């Protein structure tokens, strides 16, 4: 018998769902940064990941935004890809059957402009093999509400969550937008509406100007900022959200190292997603799995859940105001 104790880093991201979303480890490749998994299959051992989230799928095929779609920013990048994807019908023809052959859990990210379309996609996905769960991207314009972003409004986010919950028993993650004026209200609303887990943060809307041409650098004008530049914002939002809700929180935003990932766990994340870092350091997610186990072992922890939220005074206590007004204002 081996005397070496290996810390338990497994996690169930859907504890209130009988279907569970059990991962062998808490390291997930983030949507939009990992294609459909196959793109990285030759570069890293993707089957070792805790899970991966597909590129965002929409009701219809989308050819995406004009170029340029990406531009570098200080310690980060802006992207405005425009959800280029084959559409839900093109997607189901290829990927569920492929993913069924894999051991790594595959999560599908979905985006739509109406509540009905979210539900339509979820109903189709519910019948597919090879899927471990759905991640709802609510950072899309709601056509019925004049294009106001679903994710900025608690009621609209809840409506989408409820509509998807009604048509599928698949584990459901709702990915929150940091553009919400009150992210805690959105988190509580989607939890109430049936989300099994909450992931955050999506990119932060930003812009860069070409000084010589005197116009925006991105063809779409605005884009989502990601990378290490946004990490402190993400850690703060995970800290606040993990105090308010009882479902698992999946943290992301600028993770480039074990130290970064640990910040999210200590703030209350039960798992983390790695996004932009994969572009520049594709080996990072796999290294993190090993480094996390080693760190827990060295620090004397028997399992990952022993560190989740321990830097967070209000962790899972329903503490809506875990930060004082002055702290929340950054003062």
């Amino acid at each position, binding site marked *: 018998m081996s005397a070496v104790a290996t810390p338990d880093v497994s996690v169930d991201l859907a504890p209130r769902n009988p279907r569970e979303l059990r991962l062998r480890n808490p390291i997930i490749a983030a949507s939009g940064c990992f294609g459909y998994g196959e793109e990285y299959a030759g570069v890293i051992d993707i089957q070792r990941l805790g899970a991966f989230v597909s590129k965002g799928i929409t009701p219809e095929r989308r050819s995406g935004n004009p170029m340029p*779609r990406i531009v570098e920013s200080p310690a980060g990048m802006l992207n405005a890809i425009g959800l280029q994807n084959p559409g839900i019908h093109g997607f189901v023809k290829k990927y569920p059957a492929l993913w069924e052959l894999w051991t790594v859990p595959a999560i599908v990210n979905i985006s739509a402009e109406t509540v009905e379309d979210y539900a339509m996609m979820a109903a189709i996905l519910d019948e597919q093999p090879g899927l471990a769960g759905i991640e709802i991207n609510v950072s899309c314009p709601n056509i019925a509400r004049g294009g106001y972003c679903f994710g900025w409004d608690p009621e609209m986010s809840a409506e989408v969550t409820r509509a998807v919950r009604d048509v599928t028993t698949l584990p459901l993650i709702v990915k929150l937008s940091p553009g919400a004026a009150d992210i805690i209200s959105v988190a509580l609303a989607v939890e109430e509406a049936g989300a099994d887990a909450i992931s955050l943060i999506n990119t932060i809307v930003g812009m860069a100007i070409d000084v010589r041409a005197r116009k925006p650098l991105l063809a779409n004008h605005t884009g989502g900022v990601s990378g290490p530049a946004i990490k402190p914002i993400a850690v703060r939002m995970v800290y606040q959200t993990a105090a308010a809700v009882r479902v698992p929180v999946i943290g992301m935003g600028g993770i480039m190292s074990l130290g970064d990932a640990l910040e999210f766990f200590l703030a209350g994340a039960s798992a983390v997603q790695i996004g932009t870092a994969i572009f520049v350091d594709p080996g990072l997610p796999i290294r993190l799995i090993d480094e996390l186990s080693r760190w827990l072992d060295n620090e004397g922890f028997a399992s990952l859940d022993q560190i989740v939220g321990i830097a967070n005074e209000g962790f899972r206590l329903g503490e809506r105001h875990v930060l004082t007004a002055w702290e929340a204002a950054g003062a």
Partner: protein
Amino acid sequence: MQATAARAPGRGSSREFESTVLAVEPIMGDAILLTVGAPPSLVERLLPGQFFNVACRFPGSFDPLLRRPYSVYRADREKSSLTFLVRPFGRGSAWLAKRAPGETLDMLGPLGNWYAIPPRSQRLLMLAGGVGVAPLVMLSDDAAAQGLDIVFVMGAADEHGLLPASELRGSIEYLVATDDGSRGHRGLATEIISDYVAWADQIYACGPEPMYRTLRAVADPLRIHRRPKVQISVERGMACGLGACLGCVVETRRGMIASCVRGPVFDLDEVVI
């Protein structure tokens, strides 16, 4: 084509590896030739036009964050080394141009498709604009080794920006054009290719996008049934290099295509430029 197919890398052959800088030599004004070591199996299977995404920052730094794509200027299969042409332009290339022998670089590759030399091709016209000359040097190395006839045309702002003729191996006809007339034809390189368009079996080009538009304007009236074929290499800002982010797409007749995996080499007749 059989020789090419035998060492075709295909999808899934890319990897991340650390390489050591072996040599740095100045060339073409303020540019450098950066030679690095690489695994022999990788160098052996590399094809002209393929590229590597190079991290252009010190380990532990996140700025500039994104890797920079560099196509291979020359591959030495005996020494198992790769040479890149680097002109300091932005922050990434400025960092890379300051590296010294003995330092290590984080590379991801080889990435992308390659310039194809179809069977029975004998006469190749190559058109280079500025630092776009890089992949055509490797292509001309391979083509000259196969005994093919090559006309190599290069354009630059001035004579300092031109590739020295001594860098081309084999008996290659080398014509140059400069914007200021300091060497060769005064004007654009595309203005001196007319005589060779009908002569060539294949045309290969690498340079800025406006060059492709003038190439199309000059070559199309001289081509018959879209022959000779024109293969161009497209440069796009990119993030992943593996077809995952879709940040580097090129508009083609078949839709928006990731230039990092189904490019950077495209048929000029297929792309909307």
